[in-house]
């Protein structure tokens, strides 16, 4: 988390830090492990992650959580940047519709990312690689489940090759 934030201020606008490890973090035996970037809304999904932690639920370490103020804070450029720098999947998680801390943020996010998901699909991304989910702060179990499910889906798909910036592949 803190590493991700540090990376943001560096030379780029996005989700650089923590991403570079995807191709080398092979848990010792060199096996490929997917890297999933999860943008979690501060008020619901991130708190849901906290609850998962305090409830001692485990979820795969492939997921790197980036805390954002609201699901509608996420810019599609953040998603593209994550793919460019080696993410194999990107997840945006926010409050359930109707529960937004800012009243309407997730309603806007729903329209925006529905459309953006379709656009990525038209451009050739496997639809499973970009996901949006609603997770409330009381759904620690759902948080762990979603992360588990996403990791398994991406594992089955294999490494992402779309829009990867070759310059970042060398840095691992």
């Amino acid at each position, binding site marked *: 988390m803190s590493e991700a934030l540090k990376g943001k201020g560096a030379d*780029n*606008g996005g989700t650089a830090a923590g991403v570079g490890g995807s191709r080398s973090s092979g848990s010792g035996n060199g096996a490929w492990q997917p890297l999933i970037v999860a943008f979690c809304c501060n008020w619901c999904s991130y708190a849901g992650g906290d609850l998962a932690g305090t409830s001692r639920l485990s979820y795969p370490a492939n997921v790197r959580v980036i805390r954002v103020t609201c699901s509608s804070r996420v810019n599609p450029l953040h998603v593209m940047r994550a793919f460019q720098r080696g993410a194999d999947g990107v997840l945006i998680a926010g409050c359930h519709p109707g529960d937004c801390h800012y009243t*309407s943020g997730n*309603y806007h996010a729903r329209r925006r990312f529905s459309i953006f998901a*379709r*656009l990525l699909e*038209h451009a*050739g991304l496997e639809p499973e690689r970009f996901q949006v*989910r609603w997770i409330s702060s009381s759904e620690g179990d759902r948080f762990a489940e979603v992360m588990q499910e996403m990791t398994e889906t991406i594992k089955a798909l294999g490494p992402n090759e779309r829009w990867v910036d*070759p310059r970042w592949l060398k840095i691992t």
Partner: protein
Amino acid sequence: MAQDNLNRDQATARIRAAVTQDLLSGRISLLLGWQKGLFWWRSRPLFARSQQDLERLVWDSFCAVNLSRYLPEELSIEERVGILVKGCDARAFHRLLQDRMLDRERVLLYGLPCPGMLDYRLLAEAGVKEAEQMLEEGEELVIQTGGGEERRPRTDFLLEKCRLCPHPDPVVYDQLLLPPGEPWMDPASRFQDLEARERPTPAERYAYWSGELQRCLSCYACRQVCPACSCRECFAEQQEPRWLGKGAGLNENMLFHIIRVYHGAGRCIECGECQRACPVGIPLLELSRRLAKDIEELYGPYEAGMDPEAPPPLLTYRPEDPAAFPEK
């Protein structure tokens, strides 16, 4: 298809007469129109400030350039601007108006019902290389080829953006200079061709788009001509954070185009200027149209630039909206 009994020279003369009066009387200080370019199959924008300038004005089958894009810039210098608007220029005007880029009171719109503009590439394929080889007779083109004379319907040679256009007549104007025509495309069926061009798997879609976008020169002409691209600072040039490097690698090209299309989502008037302006022939309109189709499917019928009071779909929401991802 829309066509009046006037031939193009008579129509040009009528337009010239109408605008000359307003320009000389000082009602407008600048007129945006078209003049002939370097080639007979190109008409480029004309910025007329005097009667002399107006002599170069033309209204022919190649006035494809969308003039509204020039308005915000010109209105920063000029007091009152007159502009010739076809269907797409008029919708672009609405687009800019809705984005608060324009002052409606300072623009005088001369409406021109559009018969659709011709695509030189298609003409050249049919053997037309010189202006003399082609004669327009109402709905038909008379083409002189080595073997003799050939008559072909004009619709065979329209630019893609014109072939697909559901609103050739201007949707907003102060004065209509030519008689209105008949539209040839039903708005509800304007996406039919996309189904025929469906590419079923992600791998096929990626192969197609990476093949096309590989050619992108990063000239950003598609953005410069776009009436929906009105940001003062584009993400492509933003320094902090810096989204795009100076290289034109495939991943950066695709990032640029995906985000460019996304920024136009629900705002794109489908005027196809991006595709017409592209120097390397990338079918850019298709991505924007696929997105417009998705928006209609998910959030109901919407045509950008038709009604400046109707909020663009991505700037509004309903609590009961559907989503393109599982919500439970």
